[in-house]
């Protein structure tokens, strides 16, 4: 925990700042205490058994010294763009335009300065999640706050871009999405590295969906290949709400994603869709938790991983069906494609069912490219490397096709194309 002293400094400064409400100072203090007590999660914890943070702990991370100039990102596409550099909102790089009626979008920094008490419920508690989430709560200085009133619709996609610009810096973004009854929005988080060295991003996104709200969330994790990425996405869904989550994880030497949703009302729907690619010695871990607290809710969970070289992928999927949550309909699948004999994939479903009348199905596969399909492609003149790329893409395509929006799907395809050789062309 060599980093803690330097982080505590920033924390102390924030705590001492004028105008910090008591509840926030108290929550942050308890969160810091929790992290100081627990430290980083270790392999002794079941949910962290396959993911060691030792390399992270040996690394010293700096606080970014000054605002860095960064290359523009994504601005060619339509939509709202909110750019954060080393965790801090950069208005000059952002494009917010005019927001529709009933939609409020601010940086967390601004929102805490303007109306902190209104955020108390959305902000979260120090007991949420694992210890990195508590550390985020203690240290989070900025992020995006999106609030939609009853029936408000944000037609444009909101893109949140988090750029790790300073080499070796740590950042702790915290994003809050509050969707009122019947509100709709699509939020895309991009994580990219321009620092070229081991950064740490410890991020938390919290979403509250009121009755019949509909939120699509996509996270495109494209950090530098030396970076550490720890992220939590936690949703709470009221009756009739729909939450679609897409976790696209391609970068970072170590990425851990904790994604959860809690059905607190009946007739909720949720899709947790995931796609990851790791090569070299990299490591990616997804842990999901779907809490079926109420009856008549539907969850669909599909994770696909492509692993090459000596990389490792972990999927832990927990589904909890509370007593009385009858007519629960849950499907969970994890499919991994190993491109190398030394790559390794672990998948662990965990179903806890305390209701009688439920449909819960789960399955996991770990496999290699199909020899017959390879033969077919080669017999049409494609060389073996090309054929392998085509079939690997085809495996990933199943996850991409679950992204409903064409524009969003094309962005993900663009990110994948950047990983693949040019010969794949317009596949």
């Amino acid at each position: 925990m060599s980093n803690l002293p330097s982080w505590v400094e920033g924390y102390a400064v924030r705590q001492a700042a004028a105008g910090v409400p008591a509840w926030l100072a108290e929550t942050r203090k308890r969160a810091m205490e929790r992290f100081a007590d627990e430290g980083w999660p270790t392999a002794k914890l079941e949910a962290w058994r396959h993911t060691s943070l030792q390399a992270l702990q040996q690394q010293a991370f700096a606080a970014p010294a000054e605002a860095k100039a960064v290359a523009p990102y994504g601005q060619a596409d339509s939509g709202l763009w909110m750019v954060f550099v080393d965790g801090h909102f950069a208005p000059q790089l952002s494009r917010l335009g005019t927001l529709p009626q009933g939609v409020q979008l601010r940086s967390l920094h601004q929102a805490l300065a303007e109306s902190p008490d209104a955020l108390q419920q959305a902000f979260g508690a120090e007991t949420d999640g694992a210890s990195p989430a508590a550390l985020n709560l203690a240290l989070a200085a900025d992020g995006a706050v999106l609030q939609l009133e009853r029936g408000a619709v944000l037609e444009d996609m909101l893109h949140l871009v988090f750029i790790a610009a300073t080499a070796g810096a740590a950042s702790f973004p915290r994003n809050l999405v509050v969707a009122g009854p019947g509100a709709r929005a699509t939020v895309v988080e991009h994580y990219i590295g321009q620092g070229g060295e081991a950064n740490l991003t410890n991020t938390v996104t919290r979403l509250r969906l009121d009755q019949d709200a509909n939120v699509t969330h996509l996270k495109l994790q494209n950090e530098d290949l030396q970076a550490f990425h720890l992220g939590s996405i936690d949703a709470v869904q009221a009756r009739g709400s729909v939450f679609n989550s897409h976790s696209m994880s391609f970068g970072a030497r170590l990425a851990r994603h904790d994604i959860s949703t809690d059905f607190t009302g009946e007739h909720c729907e949720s899709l947790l869709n995931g796609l990851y690619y790791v090569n070299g010695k990299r490591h990616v871990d997804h842990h999901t938790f779907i809490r079926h607290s109420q009856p008549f809710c539907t969850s669909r969970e599909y994770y696909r991983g492509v692993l090459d070289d000596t990389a490792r992928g972990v999927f832990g999927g927990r589904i909890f069906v509370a007593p009385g949550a009858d007519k629960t309909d849950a499907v969970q699948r994890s499919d991994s494609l190993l491109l190398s004999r030394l790559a390794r994939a672990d998948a662990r479903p965990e179903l806890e069912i305390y209701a009688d009348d439920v449909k819960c199905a789960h399955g996991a596969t770990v496999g290699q490219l199909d020899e017959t399909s390879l033969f077919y492609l080669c017999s049409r003149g494609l060389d073996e490397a090309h054929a392998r790329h085509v079939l690997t893409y085809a495996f990933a395509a199943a996850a991409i096709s679950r992204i409903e929006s064409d524009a969003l799907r094309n962005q993900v395809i663009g990110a994948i194309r950047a990983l693949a050789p040019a010969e794949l062309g317009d596949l």
Partner: protein
Amino acid sequence: MLSIKDLHASIDEKSILRGLNLDVKPGEVHAIMGPNGAGKSTLSQVLAGRENYNVTKGTVDWDGQDLLAMPIEERARSGLFLAFQYPIEIPGVSNAYFLRAAVNAARRHQGLPELDAMDFIKLAKAEMKSVGMRDEFLYRSVNEGFSGGEKKRNEVLQMILLQPRLAILDETDSGLDIDALKVVADGVNRMRSPERSMIVITHYQRLLDYIVPDFVHVLAGGRIVRSGGRELALELEEHGYSWVMEGGKDQKGAAA
């Protein structure tokens, strides 16, 4: 063009081809008939380069080149085409991409400029019409959810687009109704030319009513046991395979 001599091949230690001889000259259409398990599909797969099969003896000369030493894709690029008995479904890859990648691999080999997406689509649509495929099949995943007949049409479409020098049709007639059979046969017949050869593998003589071969061979027990003109197919139809296998001791004319 293609000269197979004393070919022996096995899979999982089980010997399937046991001394097969066949000579195919430019422009010739050879039909290979035979009972189930005779080795018909093994022959086509070995020629295309499937690695599951072990060639234990024999040679295959392909225009002066050792075919068996060539990688799968090189065989394809040099003009050898296999229409699969069971075409493979590849979910997630559009037929348009697949077809264009195949055509451009062949064009690169021939030193021709590659076709871009627009030019290719134009070409493909025209040819699809000729085999009775709707445009939408370009944008669907390769063979995914295609009916048996649609898959076979897609194989014939690939053959037409690739313009091979030697096409091997492995039971392309199986699972086709008479209308689809005519469309497929029509596509094949339009491909016939003095430079292009074909090996038509079939269990039934029905296909040979539409694709009239120059030679008919009967494959049984891993060898060609009888060869003749197209009248041999009619005799087979009349008497069944047991007739040939009983009298199939002499292998003269196998290298017709």
